[in-house]
């Protein structure tokens, strides 16, 4: 049985990571489908699926709730999918931990909060992990497949729990939240280091901004503990031996470099990549396929359909393709030498988009068979 098969049957969490634009979401969905077909209850948490893929999964409306996908066949497993709505996830988090209604509405009115979910670096990563926490600990699903957002810097994703904690760090908070017990005398104003920092920031960014900022930290201070405990839990989940990492990339040296860099960073979690998936590989076009007899044979094959010059133009195009194909194969062999061929899986570049469960299954079979 291939490593992929074992993983699909035993893992509790599969994290799919890799550079953008390599078909990570589609591959995550295909992995989820194969696991469901193996009889497991699976949820695929995706970030931003292509519309046709979403439609093929029966997800036309963006929703932050799991939706069950109709597999039609008589399977014992279940496939669910949901798309991450980061604003909604953040709002839910705030709503859950806000001590009272006032804090909730003050948070939502704050200028900085409104910007936060889209502007704060790493917020999308954090929200994905936060949702993962809920799904993972919820107890219903045997397997969560997490499709991660493409990160510019592979480190971002792994450092996310820490980064979000840092934003609400005790030390940072102390500077911004005026101490409620301190006397408001001249003495404390002058010697309060927090107010010095605020004064400087006010000079550069204007008083309003700084007031908003203080207000923001003050209002959302209740999130501090929640983020810390959840962050620690997520860190724990990512280190769990039943958590597996799949690095998805394409046969492009710069993207492979990115995947290998991420692989290196997994060591900081005492983890490794269970599989490398090379997506959209140019199929094998062999130079040896092209000799004089092939052209003659092509002419014969085309029979009555043989337009003048057609065999030659077919040959010329095929010859061009062999260049890309050979280059792809060189890159794949090279990667195999580095990470071992048993960890390497390739999916060819299809002639059509993945737009139904059938194509998705075909894609998944390249991994599990």
């Amino acid at each position: 049985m291939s490593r992929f098969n074992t993983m699909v049957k035993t893992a509790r969490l599969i994290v799919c990571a890799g550079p953008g634009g390599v078909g990570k979401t589609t591959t995550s969905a295909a992995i989820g489908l194969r696991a469901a077909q193996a009889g497991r209850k699976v949820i695929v948490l995706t970030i931003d699926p292509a519309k046709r893929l979403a439609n093929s999964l029966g997800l036309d409306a963006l929703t932050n709730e799991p939706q069950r996908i109709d597999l039609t066949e008589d399977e014992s497993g279940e496939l669910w999918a949901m798309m991450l709505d980061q604003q909604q996830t953040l709002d839910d988090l705030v709503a859950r931990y806000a001590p009272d209604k006032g804090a909730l509405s003050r948070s939502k009115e704050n200028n900085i909060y409104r910007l936060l979910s889209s502007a704060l670096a790493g917020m999308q990563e954090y929200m994905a992990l936060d949702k993962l926490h809920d799904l993972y600990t919820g107890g219903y699903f045997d397997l969560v497949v997490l499709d991660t957002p493409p990160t510019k810097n592979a480190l971002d994703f792994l450092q996310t729990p820490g980064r979000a904690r840092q934003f609400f760090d005790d030390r940072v908070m102390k500077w911004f939240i005026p101490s409620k017990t301190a006397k408001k005398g001249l003495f404390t104003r002058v010697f309060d280091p927090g107010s010095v920092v605020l004064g400087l920031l006010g000079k550069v960014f204007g008083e309003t901004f700084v007031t908003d900022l203080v207000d923001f930290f003050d209002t959302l201070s209740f999130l501090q503990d929640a983020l810390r405990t959840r962050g620690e839990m997520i860190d724990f989940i990512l280190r769990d031996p039943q958590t597996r990492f799949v690095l998805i990339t394409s046969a492009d040296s710069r993207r492979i470099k990115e995947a290998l860099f991420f692989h290196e960073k997994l060591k900081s979690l005492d983890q490794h990549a269970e599989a490398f998936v090379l997506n959209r590989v140019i199929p094998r076009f062999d130079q040896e396929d092209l000799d004089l007899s092939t052209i003659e044979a092509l002419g014969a094959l085309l029979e009555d359909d043989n337009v003048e010059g057609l065999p030659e133009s077919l040959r010329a195009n095929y010859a061009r393709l062999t260049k890309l194909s050979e280059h792809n194969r060189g890159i794949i062999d090279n990667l195999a030498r580095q990470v071992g061929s048993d960890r390497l899986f390739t999916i060819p570049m299809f002639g059509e988009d993945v737009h139904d469960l059938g194509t998705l299954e075909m894609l998944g079979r390249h991994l599990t068979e």
Partner: protein
Amino acid sequence: MLESLDQKRLIFVTGKGGVGKSTCTAALALALAKRGRRVLVVETDAYSAMSVILGAPESEHTIIDVGHGLHAINLRSAQSLVETLTRYLPSERVVKAITQNRVTHSFFDSAPSVSEFVLLDKIMSLLDDKDNHWDHIVVDLPASGHAVTFLSVPKTLNGMMKGVGPIAKRAQDVDAMIASTTRAAIVAICLPEEMPVNETIELSANLKKTLGRGLDLTLVNMVHDRPVDEDAEDDFERASMRLRIRTNPTGVLADSSVAAPLRVLAGNQLSLKWFKRDQIYLGLLRKNLKCEIVELPMVYKIKERDIVDELASHLNTDPDPASLAS
């Protein structure tokens, strides 16, 4: 080609991750430089793709000469922050106090909008640099999902500061520059595929909504050309159908027992599918975008620098009169 960029000093390039944004940015900048312009490519990434693509030495925050009148710089936001604060704060001691303090440091590291603003501030000062006049500054922006956020940071900051203070004033100037369709251009890089095409159309709409301006140019990367002549296509399709290749060319190619001529047919069948799929997405782009759309061909070369050179010369060729007529 590239008429839409000719007079623009500031050119922002964006695109979905994985569409070849950096490769196309390099090709675009090289094409402009080969017209005799002084061009500076600005990256704001952690890793400089330009140094790999253009074979330039890696540098941080300093301008390097790549040849052909082309220069590149990989900006660091930490460095830009120090420069911005130095411009607006009364004394160096105060700047140091802010940048060397662990708390303010971690605040600026994670606070929204700060790094974007200081990078834009730096780019503005590069435009104003009298000793080093740049005809074009080409900025390799973050992926399109974040590009609108990035470009609207000056407007947002100004709003948050209610127009008060030196930074707010600068933010207004940067915003005016970005919004100016005579001085600045926004270019989208796209692939003829579903996600990138939809994202480009969305980007164009979001730019209109947020910044009141649209895209100037869309470059469609890696467009496959026709493997068989249009006249021969029907015959080719008929033959493929008869030989049962049409439905599953990848299967035929994966089967090593299949004879060579059949494999050649299958390879071409797959090419034809790629070509047709590309045309559908190009049509979708043309229907939904008002800006200039330029196709970049699939380049059958291996070295990245060779690909960039070929794309740059493609961008500098005169448009085909036939395509102008249509």
